[in-house]
């Protein structure tokens, strides 16, 4: 029997297959981890359909797709509110939906948030590339034919086991707060290169409002805000580091690095470059990535510095929400 499929009627703006933990083991060759940006909403979507939380599902950015299911499936939509409809009737987010073969799911533009996740029971049965189904679309790797989904494609889905019944929900306390608020507190850890910034520059980073610009995507989130000022490490360095104060001898870029190119900070996210020659004074913590994922151009960031141990604690707190204990049966 042929695999069950999903037909793509409309792809949305840039909808891609993502999976956790992403593409691990090839970073030293320049392959980024990719994977879903909002690991909180992503895992809750999978739990609602009875999948392991890491299972391949769809990430929809800003404008969602229109899909027709060619087999009975459980579906759940989480994250941004793209006003989902099934066969023209509004359906709820954060809820298990039992659909019949031939039913049509339509997502619109994001009313709140920026990224919605659509999980399907059995998961998306894309061919793993370098050990992962996660899409790195800039380079044409993973997912469905290496790129965002396209009109006319049939996306294969895997065999589903048992799962939550129709109407099962995520307890409200276990959901991320995606409510249209345009101001976000983004937690960071100082380093690796905070010592290249002077005291005034550090104070400005933590006290200023930073605006997310439209030139932002899954490689980097570009911010506008006040000017940076530098310590002698940046201005009195060996020539091989380069001329600009923000230049440093090429080094690895941590996931979430606040990468300073000249005067423009760019937060490097899931599909970002692995190495380069600019300093990273701060690094956004894993537990704050869902906020990056759900913010929109024009939104305001304030940064709050935590210790490494506090940042790891935040991740544990987030992970505790991503278990079947968060499911509430109808």
């Amino acid at each position, binding site marked *: 029997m042929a695999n069950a499929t999903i037909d793509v009627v409309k792809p949305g*703006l840039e909808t891609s297959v993502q999976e956790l933990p992403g593409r*691990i083991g*090839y*970073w*030293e*060759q*320049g*392959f980024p981890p990719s994977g879903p940006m909002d690991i909180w909403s992503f895992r809750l979507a999978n739990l609602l359909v009875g999948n392991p939380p890491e299972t391949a599902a769809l990430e929809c*950015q*800003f404008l969602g797709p229109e899909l027709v299911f060619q087999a009975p499936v459980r579906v759940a939509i989480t994250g941004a509110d793209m006003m989902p409809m099934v066969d023209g009737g509004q359906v709820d987010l954060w809820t298990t939906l039992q659909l019949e073969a031939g039913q049509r799911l339509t997502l619109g*533009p*994001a009313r709140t948030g920026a990224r919605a996740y659509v999980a399907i029971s059995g998961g998306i049965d894309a061919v793993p*590339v*370098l050990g992962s189904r996660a899409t790195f*679309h*800039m*380079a*044409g*790797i993973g997912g469905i034919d*290496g790129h965002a989904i396209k009109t006319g494609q049939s996306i294969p889905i895997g065999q589903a086991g048992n799962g939550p019944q129709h109407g099962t929900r995520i307890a409200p306390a276990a959901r991320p707060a995606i409510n249209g608020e345009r101001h976000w507190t983004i937690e960071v850890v*100082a*380093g690796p*290169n905070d010592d290249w910034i002077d005291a005034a520059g550090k104070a400005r980073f933590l006290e200023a409002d930073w605006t997310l610009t*439209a*030139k932002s*995507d*899954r490689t980097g989130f570009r911010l506008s805000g006040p000017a940076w000022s530098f310590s002698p490490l940046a201005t009195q360095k*060996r020539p*091989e*580091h*380069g*001329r600009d104060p923000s*230049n440093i*001898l*090429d*080094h*690895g870029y*941590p*996931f*979430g*690095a606040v*990468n300073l*190119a000249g005067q423009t900070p*760019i937060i*490097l996210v899931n599909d*970002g*470059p692995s*190495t*380069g*020659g*600019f300093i*990273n004074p701060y*690094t956004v913590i*894993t537990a704050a990535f869902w906020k990056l994922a759900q913010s*929109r*151009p024009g939104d305001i960031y304030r940064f709050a510095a935590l210790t*490494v141990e506090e940042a*790891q604690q935040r*991740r*544990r707190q987030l992970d505790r929400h991503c278990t079947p204990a968060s499911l509430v049966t109808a």
Partner: protein
Amino acid sequence: MVGQWRPFPGSHDGSLGYITSHVAVLGEQRGTGDMIFDKPEFRPGGDRNILVYLGDEMSFDLNFLVHSYAAAIREARLDGVVELIPELASLLVSYDPERIAYNDLIRELVAIRASIGAIAGIELPSRLFYVPVLYFDPWTQACVDDYRARIAEKEPDADFLVSLNGLADRRQLVRVHSGTEYWVAALGFWPGLGSFLPLDPRCRLTAPKYDPPRTWTPKGTVGIGGAITCIYPDRTPGGYQIFAISPMPIWDPSQRLAAFRDSLALFKPGDRVRFIPIDREEHDYISGKVDDGTYKHPDVGFQCFSIDAYHGWVDTLDPTERF
């Protein structure tokens, strides 16, 4: 708001400067030594990465230490270490904090660094790749012409490299550039994009980067920026001075050719590369074989690289000599 949103493939203009970021000059091939730290500097990169800086200079010896350190960390099989990215003078270590605590990991990394000591006596496995290259090809020429017409006037890259490095002519540029093995010091930014350091000190070439950067570079282009040579794996922006092209793919997302069975990118850090000059006829023959899927990459030499043997050889050379 949705209307403002446009995915921006390849337009990461700040960090795209990465290709263009080596404004450095490789001063002493052996390094001065005093800029190799006795103890590594550890800097957190968020909640699951650590940057480890082993020194503060651009030298082959320091980069060899980075690779020796990476090999020792891999050999130690520390539970919770996920990935390593060796770079010119540093190493990024990604870890799982549920399996190893930050302070415990640093303690382990300090101990491993101490166990290596100096690099003398170290041998590392290193593969040698032969890369066929057509120098002064029409495609990079067209790319340079396009830049000069649309973006900024500049001396043609090949002539610029000749005059800047005190060479007699383009023929000598080919002899010098293809007269050495290169060390794959690091890979990054784009899948398969390597930073190659010349191992023969007589073959060092340097050049500043483009300013502003190029918006496109032909796939397979060979360029020099700072003291580093690279091959652009695909059509991407860039900033190195460009003067040659290789028809041999160094990365292949479709994994069509046999060389890409295990990864999509040919090179790994610590490999070596040798450029083999070819003529247009050979270039077109290879391109045809690549296009029909029958191309076989040249045999790879599997060898061990001994830092002592390398130093012994370098000491016999007159570094002021050119080919």
